[in-house]
């Protein structure tokens, strides 16, 4: 039943995906309103799906694609918060395809099972998952904002009359969205790693720093920290910020993929 709700959500997110492609070409208030309503409806279905999943007790045993579903939902939540503050749907250009992709993966495939040995540390594990995924969602949004910043900066520098009727908000608004997402995501990511370590220590008695998952997660956190620091200290924007955000996101993806290779934090079929 949970999968059915998720597929309903996926259908709604598909409207958002179409909007993302459409918005790159031209601006339409009507379409952005439709996409927003579709996304909101999708979130309702998605929420029902997650609640059902949680109540069924599967959330801990089969976390592979449920994790993707949760990450998609959190990313959408961030998007809605940003919409509530800045009244812009333009981050959807990045967020909608990302959310659609994650929901698609979660809605169509069998669930790979994630390490069943952590069952006894349920509370910590839930905290770890939610904190890390909130951090990921904020990172995605920040990455999206840095790309949009680049696009808007290019448009303004190109000095074409169309630069003034672009669908994007003002440069400084995009910058604020990116920076605030970054600042918000960092503590979540840090606490997520700490809770993850607690779970690992209580399960294995130590944190194995040679494990690819652990190593890559720490590497991602370091890059994330560098990004926050350079932004805070030197106000890096534009190309440099986009480059750093790309590196961080790539590090996050690699850390995620490491779930397939890790000895202690892995998916099993």
């Amino acid at each position, binding site marked *: 039943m949970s999968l059915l709700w998720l597929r309903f959500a996926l259908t709604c997110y598909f409207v958002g995906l179409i909007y993302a492609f459409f918005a790159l070409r031209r601006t339409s208030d009507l379409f952005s309103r439709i996409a927003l309503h579709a996304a909101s409806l999708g979130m309702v279905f998605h929420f029902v799906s997650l609640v059902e999943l949680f109540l069924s007790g599967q959330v801990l045993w089969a976390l592979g694609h449920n994790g993707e579903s949760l990450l998609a939902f959190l990313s959408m939540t961030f998007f809605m918060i940003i919409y509530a503050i800045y009244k812009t749907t333009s981050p959807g250009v990045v967020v909608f395809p990302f959310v659609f992709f994650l929901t698609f993966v979660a809605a169509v495939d069998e669930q790979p099972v994630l390490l069943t040995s952590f069952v006894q540390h349920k509370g910590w594990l839930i905290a770890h998952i939610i904190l890390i995924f909130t951090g990921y969602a904020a990172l995605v949004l920040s990455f999206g904002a840095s790309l949009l910043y680049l696009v808007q900066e290019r448009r303004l520098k190109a*000095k074409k*009359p169309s*630069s*003034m009727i*672009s669908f994007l908000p*003002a*440069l*400084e*608004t995009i910058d604020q969205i990116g920076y605030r997402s970054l600042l918000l995501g960092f503590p979540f990511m840090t606490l997520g790693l700490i809770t993850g370590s607690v779970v690992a220590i209580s399960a294995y008695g130590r944190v194995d720093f040679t494990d690819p998952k652990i190593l890559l997660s720490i590497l991602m956190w370091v890059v994330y920290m560098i990004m926050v620091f350079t932004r805070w200290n*030197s106000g890096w924007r534009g190309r440099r910020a986009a480059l750093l955000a790309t590196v961080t996101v790539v590090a996050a993806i690699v850390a995620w993929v490491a779930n397939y290779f890790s000895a202690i934090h892995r998916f099993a079929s």
Partner: protein
Amino acid sequence: MRYQLIGVNHKSAPLEVRERLAIPESKLPDCCRDLAAYPGIEEGMIISTCNRVEVITHTTNGTADLRGFLHDHFRLKAEDLDPHLYEFREKDAVRHVFRVASSLDSMVVGEAQILGQVKEAYATARAVGAVRGQLDQLFSRAFAVAKRVRTETAVGSSSVSIASVAVELAKKIFGTLQGKNVFIVGAGKMSELAARHLMAHGCASIFVANRTYERAIGLAQRFNGQAIKFEDLYNSCDRADIVITSTGAPHAIFRREHGEQFLSRRKNRPMFFIDIAVPRDVAPQMAELDGIFVYDIDDLQQAVAGHIADRRKEAEQAEAIIASEVEKFEARAHTLDVVPTIVSLQDHLETIRQAEIDRVRGRMGSLTPEQEMAVEALTRGIINKVMHTPITTLKSAAKESEATTVIDVVRRLFNLPAKTKESGVEADSKKDEVGTRQ
């Protein structure tokens, strides 16, 4: 549809002619009264702006001497005025009014001011009783059409002056201009105008640097800002988010290395340079830096030209809206024309029916209520059948140009009383009545 319009505008007459026709606001009510009292005119109003003077009327027979009114009222000779006049009647007059209200006939197509001016002229004429039913209908529709044009096209959405383009660009960079600082380098007229626009949009403070320090002080005082000595320019410039520069320097005064210094001191917060100097004050290499946006006079003019071209494109769409609205208005006006005839016809036949029933009632003796109802139903049925074809013909003719001929034929055939002048509201209520009777 006996609308008649005469006037001059920026395209048909030079300023000297328009000046002689211009009516001061205080004299407009009297002028409207004179117009409404002029022979052959039922209702009238006058739009007088710096770009146009137009007399719009609804006449008794569609051939009022509006030129005569202008000659008499403004004491102008025909040879001085007539070559500059344009005149529209009926459908063309309606189209022209719609175009003017929608700002398609303006010097700067899409400017918003004209609609307000037309509304004021309408209110003035209405207040003195010069505008009643017919012009009321025309202008209520014109305002609705103008609103439709504004919402369905982007004819008025983009800026078409250098100062407003500069403000728009600044907003695209900074979002809101609240709390932003402006630096004027070189106290020229253009930069002062741009600064005035920026301040009007919420910029917090202004700094002025000029080679002649006294001029900087003078300009700074006008904006309640701060004068900066020219030698301190590079040390203070990073305090500004927006720099408007227009010095007469023969070479660039802002180079890439200055930009790098500013960005470093500002922690890479963006800066917007509006360079309206010729030769340019800002070296082109400055624009290569991330976070520095430079628009020179050519870029701004190009943006303005682009917006004007966009407006022209949108205006084509607006013209299509107006064409369809004129058709609708004409059809509605013709429908209103036939309503009094239909009502007269119904009244006429009802009178005959009642008279015939009264005449035969004596001969038939007393009737039971059932018989009374049967007679009533029978006679009504006959009348309705007789009326059906003429009413259907009138209604379908209302949509065509032959409406007036058909109305005349029906009136003559049934010997209906002469048509009376009815207000739009009365005609509207009768139209509803006709609908229910049918």
